[in-house]
């Protein structure tokens, strides 16, 4: 069983909802990413979603765009991200790490080389935002022998027929994008999310994570009632941006925020 599947199975047995915080590797600087990851785990993160910086993050709002730009200023690209994961793994052999990024850096590295190096570094899942299942088969074939879970997005605009198609090629979990928009955009509508998650569950037994639009304890708690995982990105990255010049306060604040989300999620069930 993959590290992701194991983690979700354990959470289910314990009756808990997963908390998946997102940070961009290399933001605000490469030295802080690993300490941030450990701090998030210590305060209740079940899975870490690690952003791979890209020059043209078409699906991201301004907050995560700027995180990408900061990381690229430090020359953190795909190879640097794998280095971050390798360092993280030395102290944490258990927490699953999912990479979230765009296809082009992977294309340039080559699918086979990427899959091999990612698995060696300790990556568990890969979410490639701009790679829909229709174009994904060669990439999936490269991930399979290394046991890497391909994570796919589902959206409010996903037609009924596609949900099944996507869930068939996905493993680990599926990621429901709760709003029509970019990351960090609108506030989500919990009732709409509830019915969409139910629709997804009729197609798959995979855990359903929900992200986009979760910005604080109350919204995390609301989503925790309907989802298997609560994914928080821009709200965290915004805090990192504000405190980027003050690493000690940054680590303390992020720890506190993740702890707040954890408590809200646990209180919701």
């Amino acid at each position, binding site marked *: 069983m993959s590290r992701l599947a194991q983690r979700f199975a354990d959470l289910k047995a314990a009756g808990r909802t997963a908390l998946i915080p997102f940070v961009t590797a290399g933001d605000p600087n490469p030295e802080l990413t690993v300490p941030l990851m450990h701090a998030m785990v210590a305060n209740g993160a079940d899975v870490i979603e690690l952003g791979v910086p890209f020059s043209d*993050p078409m699906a*991201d709002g301004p907050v995560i765009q700027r995180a990408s730009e900061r990381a690229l200023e430090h020359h953190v690209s795909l190879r640097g991200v794998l280095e971050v994961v390798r360092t993280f793994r030395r102290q944490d052999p258990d927490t699953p790490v999912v990479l979230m990024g765009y296809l*082009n850096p992977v294309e*340039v*590295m080559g699918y086979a080389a990427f899959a091999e190096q990612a698995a060696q570094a300790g990556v568990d899942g890969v979410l490639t935002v701009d790679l829909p299942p229709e174009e994904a088969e060669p990439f999936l074939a490269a991930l399979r022998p290394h046991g890497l879970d391909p994570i796919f997005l589902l959206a409010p605009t996903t037609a009924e027929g596609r949900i099944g198609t996507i869930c068939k090629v996905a493993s680990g979990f599926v990621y429901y994008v709760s709003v029509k928009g*970019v990351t960090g955009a609108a506030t989500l509508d919990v009732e709409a999310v509830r019915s969409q998650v139910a629709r997804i569950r009729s197609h798959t037994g995979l855990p359903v994570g929900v992200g986009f639009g979760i910005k604080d304890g109350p919204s995390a708690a609301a989503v925790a009632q309907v989802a298997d995982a609560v994914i928080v990105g821009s709200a965290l990255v915004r805090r990192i941006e504000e405190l980027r010049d003050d690493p000690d306060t940054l680590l303390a604040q992020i720890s506190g925020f993740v702890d707040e989300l954890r408590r809200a999620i646990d209180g919701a069930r």
Partner: protein
Amino acid sequence: MPKTEQHMSGAELQQLPDAGGHFGPYGGRFVAETLMGPLEELRQAYERYKDDPQFIAEFEYDLKQFVGRPSPLYLAERWSAKLGGAKVYLKREDLNHTGAHKVNNTIGQALLAKRMGKSRIIAETGAGQHGVATATVAARLGLKCVVYMGAVDVERQKINVFRMRLLGAEVVPVHSGSKTLKDALNEAMRDWVSNIDDTFYIIGTVAGPHPYPAMVRDFQSVIGREAREQCLEQEGRLPDALVACVGGGSNAMGLFYPFLADEAVAMYGVEAGGEGIASGRHAARFATGRPGVLHGQRTYLMEDEDGQIIESHSVSAGLDYPGVGPEHVWLKESGRATYVYATDEEALAAFHDLTRTEGIMPALESSHALAYATKLAPTMAPDRIIIVNLSGRGDKDIHTVAALEGITV
């Protein structure tokens, strides 16, 4: 994987893309899941209307009465004599309403937007020509219009920015990334995904996710259809060579496509060589780029060794794009078309030369095609025929040209 064998015949090339929007291994649809549904909805609407007699009649009426088509195929006699070789004809897209070929496509997409019940139009623009053409049709159809433009381009194309505002469009300067066309495209995509229900995104070139490359090509193909007929009428035969500049590549695709099956007609796409290939400051994707994925398509890109997109450079904002339409990549790999480049300096020389010799002031984009024609024509006999796509007029560029020559206008 899509079919990758090369050397397809021209007639086979004309049948592309496949159902998934592929030209060989290029093109396709590489976008986040939220856009997959809307793109499929757009494809279906386009498939439904492109053969609809009423839609075609409305499109053709607008091209005739609003744009002023057909545009002339003009024999540049004095310039041809000066070059000393083939006869050079200019396809006068510069005479279109709004001053460039861009309007052919914006009319087509705006008519489609209206039929799809969308009340808001968005667009990206580099030089501002596509932005102006979009703002123009939006004004005419009474649609709300927002144009995204890189902050750098807003600065270097002030006149077009003001034109768009006069037409009632909101121009949004984009400050992310390199602040040029590619970033404007990113921002327009972000707007689209956030306003899917009422918004139609008019992409200005033969790039982006399926169905855009094929749809824009089809709307622009009026250029090649007219040129083919006009050449037959004026010369009694087909041309020997076609020359067009290639940024994203819509004016070139529009000219080339109707000639693809005419195997004897050579095709040259001219990229922006900027300050020269060795300088690294250029937009010659075919000279130095390699395959990658950006803006919803697999194509040739200018990128670093980590797959991060790098900034392109050209004196003409309209050619300043690190990617290129996927159909061009396939035409190159299949050997049907040849891609070359002209530097800033060569383009400027051609700009002055045509202006002085023919009394026609070309856009700096089109000047790249003219620059290549100055090399090609002398290698051909006087009874040979070249058609250069004069894709736009140069009025918008006079400030750039003046500044380069140290003149304050």
